[in-house]
């Protein structure tokens, strides 16, 4: 049952968005978020929305997939919208009853806030849907490389991240095995109230942790005997290369930023 969990939520494909260098995609995502928060008027929002829609279209990720990815944050969006609706003190009163006043400005802010969150999440979802976790860590390592100068252990961090990703399926399989072993000895995992359920997890977690530590120890020995000695002097089988499409994409991103700043000046 645990094997059904989808991890990283990567949907392999061969579209332009998939083929972009992970660094390009990371930078574009950051640019996109900046642009989204700079956007003020309806025209700016429309421009950003069009950009998002085109990207999703090119990536061939189905709209349904994006929408289902948005589902977990539905409550957050609703709460944000309602709070903005209630607490915005505007001039044009639309409705007033008991102690609640709803203004036109309030409705407008609520809608823009909700739209902003939806677009923010949809944009970042597009990144994780079209980039494998390994590519992401690789890209992140390359992007953060300059930080090595101020002694940030960039290589070590990305190595830890990719090993963590590598061991997720192994540990899930192990959890499954331990669960079955405990069930065979009469443990119950899905009955009782919340506290009982939490207590039932204990005989699962203790062996899982012990085995994870043992695995880590063995893995470290195996890595050492394969000459691992940190990032120094290390080469790579797959080197990330910036192609023409990457530079073009980045230029599009910068133009987008310039456009939204200009629109902001004009109050649109």
């Amino acid at each position, binding site marked *: 049952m645990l094997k059904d969990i989808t991890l990283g939520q990567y949907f392999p494909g061969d579209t332009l968005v998939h083929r972009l260098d992970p660094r390009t995609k990371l930078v574009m995502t950051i640019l996109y978020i900046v642009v989204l928060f700079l956007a003020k008027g309806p025209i700016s929002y429309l421009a950003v929305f069009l950009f998002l829609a085109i990207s999703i279209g090119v990536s061939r990720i189905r709209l349904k997939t994006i929408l289902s990815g948005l589902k977990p944050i539905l409550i957050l969006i609703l709460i944000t919208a309602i709070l903005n609706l209630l607490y915005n003190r505007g001039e044009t009163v639309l409705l007033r009853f008991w102690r609640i006043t709803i203004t036109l400005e309030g409705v407008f802010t609520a809608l823009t806030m909700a739209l902003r969150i939806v677009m923010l999440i949809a944009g970042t979802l597009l990144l994780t849907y079209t980039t494998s*976790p*390994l590519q992401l860590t690789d890209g992140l390592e390359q992007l953060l490389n300059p930080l090595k100068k101020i002694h940030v252990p960039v290589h070590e961090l990305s190595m830890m991240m*990719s*090993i963590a*990703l*590598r061991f997720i*399926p*192994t540990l899930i*399989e192990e959890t499954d095995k331990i669960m079955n072993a405990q069930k065979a000895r009469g443990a119950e995992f899905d009955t009782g109230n919340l506290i009982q359920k939490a207590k039932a997890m204990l005989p699962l977690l203790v062996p899982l942790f012990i085995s994870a530590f043992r*695995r880590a120890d*063995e*893995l470290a*020995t*195996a*890595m*050492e*005997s*394969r*000459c*691992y*000695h940190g990032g120094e*002097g*290390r*080469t*790579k*089988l*797959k*080197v990330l290369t910036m192609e023409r499409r990457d530079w073009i994409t980045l230029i599009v991103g910068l133009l987008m930023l310039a456009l939204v700043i200009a629109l902001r000046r004009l109050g649109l």
Partner: protein
Amino acid sequence: MNIIRTEKLDFEYDAESGRGLVLKELDLEIEEGSFVAILGHNGSGKSTLAKHMNAILLPTGGKVFVSGMDTSDEERLLEIRRTVGMVFQNPDNQIVANVVEDDVAFGPENIGIPTAEIRTRVDEALKAVGMYEYRNHAPHLLSGGQKQRVAIAGIIAMRPRCIVLDEPTAMLDPSGRREVLDTVHRLNRENGITVVLITHHMDECIDADRLIVMADGAIIADGSPREVFPQVELLRDTGMDVPATVGLAWELRKAGYDMPLDALSAEECAEALYRVFG
């Protein structure tokens, strides 16, 4: 020529615990290009010895040399480890990457091989273990035997002169065991790589050039399998068994039949039986 040599090798894990030496004054030379099996039951010190062969453990007394390099010389650590590669028991705990070919590339990446050459080495190594078609697979979806072959490819890609395998088949099913052993024998035969196979399965030692039996941190028998296995009493005294073929011949000899004790394979044993009883 020797690839590995130990001189009066002593080792204890924790000097203060007083548990005594795990390895005692061990003298051993391993010939380059040979296939050596080291047999012993749990606690005999065989895994500890293996870990000395590529400087994962350093001797508390005596010396270990890998192709002339002292393993306690930290300057040459990487050179020692790329000369003698090591494969461990649990394939899951030695695979580093999410994709088979990335994992095989891990060793060459660490020793700074240029990108284009890593590619050729990875392809070569995967072909040598018969896992080339699986190069883009996720390791956790492979069978135990396949995973272990990927681990072996990861070592071969560093082009070592010797591979030490520490109970590589202990967690595998019979067909996985066969796959791994066939691969290791082929590497020894065709690529001339020295193989040191640590095991507690008698059957895996039959085809070795040389068999070393360990008990309580010392070597108690050393020679070709045909010389070692007939020493049935010595082996049984240390809690070990002999291959079923030798066991049968031993019982028959006790009953007064003239069975040879060095008929190790099932075929040889059958022929001997045929001669004795036919």
